[in-house]
């Protein structure tokens, strides 16, 4: 993972923590970052899979 990507993840963590009022202690950051990097790789694997616009998500709400 390049420096820019690493930095952008640091920025993402900072911004979301502020937006959600999540207090994060500095020593927790490396663990949070490495977890997030794994999740984003997993999410990219899913998101790159092409599905039609009409694809319904799995949970179906019943009114």
């Amino acid at each position, binding site marked *: 993972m390049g420096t820019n990507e690493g930095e952008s993840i640091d920025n*993402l*963590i900072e911004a*979301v*923590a502020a937006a*959600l*009022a*999540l*207090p*994060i*202690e500095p020593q*927790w950051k490396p*663990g*949070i*970052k490495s*977890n*997030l990097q*794994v*999740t*984003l790789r*997993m*999410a990219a*694997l*899913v*998101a790159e*899979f092409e*599905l039609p616009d009409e*694809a*319904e*998500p*799995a*949970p179906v709400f019943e009114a």
Partner: protein
Amino acid sequence: MDAWASADRIASAVAAGRTTAAAVVEAALERIAERDKVLNAFTAITRERARAKARAIDRACAEGKPAGPLAGVPFAVKNLFDVAGLPTLAGSKINRDRLPAAADSPLIARLEAAGAVLVGALNMGEYAYDFTGENVHDGPSRNPHDTAHMTGGSSGGSGAAVAGGLVPIALGSDTNGSIRVPASFCGIFGLKPTYGRLSRARTFPFVASLDHVGPLARTARDLALAYDAMQGWDPEDPVCARRPPEPALPLLEGGVGGLRIAVAGGYFRRGATPGALAAVARVAEALGASREVEVPEAARARAAAFVITTSEGAALHLDRLRTRARDFEPTIRDRLISGAMVPAPLVVRAQKFRRWYREQVLRLFESVDAILAPTTPFPAPRIGQQTMQLEGAEVPLRPNIGIFTQPISFIGLPAVPVPLEPLPIGVQIIAAPWREDIALRIAHALDQAKVAAASAE
């Protein structure tokens, strides 16, 4: 009744008056007092409650009332099930501050209505976000086959209690593999039913999209007994299906003749130790399963389950992460906080993928009745172990434990892990939705043929 007596044998003996529920329960309590010092499976023992329930069963038997199918059978539950009078810990420190539960979860009530006797609550990985059975607050549950090794998790106490001969039946939960992994590592049977089959009401949740509950036992018959007693719609769980109970026990002796059974290829052959693959091959040979099927896009399915898990888990715990982050187990806190950072479109894409993948896999079940796959890529690692040798490379241990269970629970397919020796290690018998009966029938045939069997530690 020895420690290894099955639920089936205990219930028959109690019904026939050859023993009493009180004697069975007292023996179980003694075993727990003795062996749990090492196994660390229990976080609470409900002695007085169990003794009172056992006396009531014996009284009813003496009055000639019909004994239930689980008469006098001791059982215990992962501590995320509500037990009246106990705070529902879900493996955490934070939940110790909860008020004691006012009532039992409905699955406990249903098992007790069938004559079973709750003897306690079981250790688990914190908030079920775990595959190891380790817990910093309560200490690790220990594998009865070798106490230096992990039980697997997150239903670690459930695996240890059943494999250690403390109880014949335990309940666990399975979001990504948390029943199947400890069943594999501890060398016992388990049932992760179809998503929506058994009520999750009054259990502490983890990932609403993926949470299942089910039994662990030392025989396939005991699984069927417990499962049948727990079936049925429950309006308290909005996911619980409006289906009448479909008892598996009457179909258990149906054998495997006429069933189309295939082995999962591709993804399910990569990243496993030779021992795990050999276990699948032994089961396949015993069942005459020569066909191989490819579960399409299983790696992506596992990835999507991972994404949904971390983000729904984060949403569940967001307030606790704001106010009590230091009270979480550190590795779980880091995972949950990172889950709050996942951009929402990626989570929705994972849910869209889930429906597509479900449709593809259901097509497979038009031409097969069951699919065999490893449960875990390797047998139980040592407690505290962080990495693993796989295919010549050193890989991080924890995220690899669930690679073969996640693509199955992701779309709610019923699966029964069956135990193979000597490692031990499990092989999953996977069936189409609502066909637990088929998975249990195959597991029972393997159990009877001694291809797969739980063995004393």
